[in-house]
């Protein structure tokens, strides 16, 4: 058993595709039209053969209230690993990304949380080198 895919529910798949590629910098792996929606996955440029992120239509009526409650409390839907949280924060802010939490040193990790404009908060996490 392997974990090859993970997913985020998105309000609008095409808008999400633009945000996750043009803004975040991921690469499209699959974009297969399936009737009303599409099977869209993106991968990291640093690991193109790695885990694929599925941009999944947030269609089920339960997703709305669920994500509203998460966002209200500032809880990220998922997290991505970065080498330098401060540099990513600076890069993304310059592209107009809104952060709910700027880079915060929590001892072993530095984390920050931003709005993906598709209904989710996303955390970036830098693991600090251990002395």
């Amino acid at each position, binding site marked *: 058993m392997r974990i090859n895919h993970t997913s985020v529910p998105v309000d609008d798949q095409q808008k999400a595709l633009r945000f996750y590629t043009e803004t975040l910098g991921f690469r499209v792996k699959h974009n297969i039209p399936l009737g009303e929606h599409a099977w869209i996955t993106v991968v990291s440029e640093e690991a193109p053969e790695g885990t694929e992120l599925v941009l999944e239509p947030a269609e089920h009526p339960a997703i709305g209230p669920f994500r509203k409650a998460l*966002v209200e*409390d500032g809880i990220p839907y998922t997290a991505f690993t970065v080498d330098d949280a401060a540099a990513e924060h600076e890069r993304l802010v310059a592209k107009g990304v*809104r952060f709910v939490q700027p880079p*915060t040193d929590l001892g072993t990790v530095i984390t920050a*949380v931003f709005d993906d404009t598709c209904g989710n*908060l996303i955390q970036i996490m830098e693991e600090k080198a251990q002395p």
Partner: protein
Amino acid sequence: MDIYRAIADRTRRAILDELVDRSGQSLFEICGRLIMKHGIGSSRQAISQHLDVLEAAGLIRTRREGRSKLHWFVGAPLKEIGERWPVSTDEDTSHSTDEDIEK
């Protein structure tokens, strides 16, 4: 809710310390700071109740930014303490911290 009861609890004092460090935090950020920096692993529900107590005492206020609810520290109610028991200039004014108190 009076301020004395509000600040009589170690977790609530730690919440205020963290909100002084950075104003405008979500419940998620507050919980993350409490567990990672203070070793306080209370549930989100418990921390939420602590925030309600602090808000009722006027020591924090909340505001929505986008769709997230953020929390700010408000120091004004604490002025009452200094006015009620003023510190005279000729006494020892070395400070103690929570760590000293709990030892």
